[in-house]
């Protein structure tokens, strides 16, 4: 059991299959670590201890019977945005504080089928709206590298839990950077797949044309193992794409000799912290040493991504969140005077400040007379942003740059200024606008805080992204660093 909590999923899977450790032992270890450290980190909203131990015992049976899949018996945490049957599913909102999901999301169901063991549901920004995990109804999450700093968001609980080795992997969702930015700020590998690659069924909707689930792990090798479970067509998601799912582990070791890397000059502008820039430069040099060829490219509409996002995402959020009416499920106000009072007070009490702000923006831009000027205009600019990437991928295989302009910022530092907070997603948002896959991998440290390198791929090119990430991780060990307090 020596240091099992710092092992990768690939190592844990091997240990489980060889009988070196049982799933019950592993699950118990991680549950104990959660109990010990969660009070300081606040990364879990719900622990599912009894259910986890039962699932672990069942996994041990499967392992003994020789009927095990790679993730059988492996403990994992799920972002509290995925409906998990019979388990409280809150989306970190007071609105859903009393919501026991009556069905299972496709994504989590696939992990159940694979025999993975759910440890609990992780904290997040309310309805995934935030970049710091400070908008949660259940309180802010702390960054294990520095407890006075944010873990990033919105998948802040998932990254905090994995970085502190309270779970060896977690699921996240990414609408404007919510997997990649927190992965960068906590020193982890995070992958946002191509839009439509992973089913959104049972994943509580924020902005339906942008939302996508993905893995948060230590290594690209582990991300591939999770993708092998998560990815695939689902007829219950109308935007799921019906195309072949490769074995994401198959090409990890491919040579990257001659790989063409594009560096968008717009990602290295004045807004980028110098210390972060130096780490990114060093990572790019490492890639050159591995045989890749680097050239500068341009994505001229980059600066428009954040403004466009703050039309598209709030518009879709205000539409999606209209389902919370205090009638069928979720929070309901006391003693409603009439139907209008029931709606307005239930929603006014149930949603937090940032969610209300976005519903207001979305309602405004969709209101009569404004549709063409805002939503339609945003959809047109979305096409321009997407065309920038299409043109770039004519000449390069992968695009690289920083994931976030700075390292993790202090709790409260940007909480009062929505626009400043929004700009922390400047390098990640355009990927969602275009629907492309992208990863963030640990590339080093600046003043003791992790820095993430973003890798952007062409549509459905997750395999190549994981290959490119894996080769770097074979040559470096940034992804295996553990915060001192959690070793």
């Amino acid at each position, binding site marked *: 059991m020596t240091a099992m909590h710092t092992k990768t999923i690939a190592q844990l899977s091997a240990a489980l299959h060889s009988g070196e450790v049982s799933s019950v032992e592993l699950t118990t270890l991680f549950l104990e670590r959660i109990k010990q450290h969660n009070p300081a980190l606040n990364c879990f909203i719900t622990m599912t201890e009894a259910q986890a131990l039962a699932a672990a015992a069942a996994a041990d049976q499967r392992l003994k019977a020789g009927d095990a899949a790679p993730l059988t018996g492996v403990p994992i945490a799920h972002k509290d945005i995925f409906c998990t049957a019979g388990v409280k599913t809150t989306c970190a909102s007071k609105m859903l504080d009393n*919501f026991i999901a*009556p069905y299972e999301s496709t994504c989590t169901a696939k992990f159940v089928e694979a025999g993975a063991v759910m440890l609990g549901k992780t904290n997040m920004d309310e309805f995934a709206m935030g970049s710091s995990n400070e908008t949660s109804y259940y309180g802010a999450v702390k960054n294990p590298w520095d407890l006075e700093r944010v873990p990033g968001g919105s998948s802040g609980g998932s990254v905090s839990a994995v970085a502190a080795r309270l779970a060896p992997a977690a699921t996240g969702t990414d609408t404007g950077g919510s997997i990649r930015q927190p992965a960068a700020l906590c020193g982890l590998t995070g992958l946002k797949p*191509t*839009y*439509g690659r992973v089913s959104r069924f049972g994943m509580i909707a924020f902005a339906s*044309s942008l939302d996508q689930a993905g893995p948060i792990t230590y290594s690209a090798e582990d991300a591939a193992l999770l993708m092998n479970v998560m990815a695939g067509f689902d*007829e219950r998601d*109308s*935007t799921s*794409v019906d195309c072949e799912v490769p074995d994401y582990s198959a090409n990890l070791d491919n040579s990257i000799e001659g790989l063409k890397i594009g560096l968008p000059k717009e990602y290295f502008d004045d807004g980028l912290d110098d210390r972060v820039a130096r780490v990114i430069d060093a990572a790019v040099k490492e890639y050159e040493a591995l045989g890749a060829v680097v050239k500068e490219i341009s994505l001229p*509409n980059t*600066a*428009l991504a*954040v*403004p*466009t996002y*703050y*039309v598209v995402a709030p518009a879709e959020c205000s539409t999606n969140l209209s389902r919370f009416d205090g*009638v*069928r*499920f*979720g929070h*309901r106000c006391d003693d*409603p*005077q*009439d*139907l209008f009072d*029931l*709606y*307005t007070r239930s*929603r*006014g*009490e149930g*949603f937090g400040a940032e969610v209300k*702000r976005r*519903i*207001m923006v979305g*309602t*405004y*831009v969709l*209101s009569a007379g404004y549709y063409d*000027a*805002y939503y339609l*205009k*945003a*959809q*047109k*600019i*979305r*096409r*321009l942003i*997407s065309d920038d990437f299409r043109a770039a991928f004519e000449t390069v295989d992968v695009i690289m740059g920083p994931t976030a302009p700075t390292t993790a910022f202090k709790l409260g530092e940007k909480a009062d200024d*929505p*626009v400043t907070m*929004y700009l922390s997603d400047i390098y990640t948002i355009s990927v969602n*606008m*275009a*629907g*492309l896959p992208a990863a963030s991998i640990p590339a080093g440290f600046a003043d003791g805080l992790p820095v993430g390198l973003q890798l952007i791929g062409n*549509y459905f090119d997750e395999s190549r992204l994981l290959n490119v990430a894996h080769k770097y991780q074979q040559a470096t060990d940034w992804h295996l660093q553990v915060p001192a307090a959690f070793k």
Partner: protein
Amino acid sequence: MSVDQSDITKVALLARLKIDEADVPQYVENLSNILGLVEQMSEVDTDNVVPMAHPLDAAQRLRADEVTEVDQRERFQALAPQIESGLYLVPKVIE
């Protein structure tokens, strides 16, 4: 683009959100700032650009018109704040 207090009141009504009177100035400031950010879009010429609704330009998939869901009314209503005889209860709408 800036909004005023009456815009906030109107949008809150459309969004069915109760907003405390005291918070209205904060909403005026926040929404004006956000719409100011969004304003950058107007500088771009998009006259001949086709709007993008889906990142992969996929069309809505059709399926056969068959019953695929079973009735789970009791299960779903167990989550409702107030029900009676299989009905969701709301304040009286029609006198």
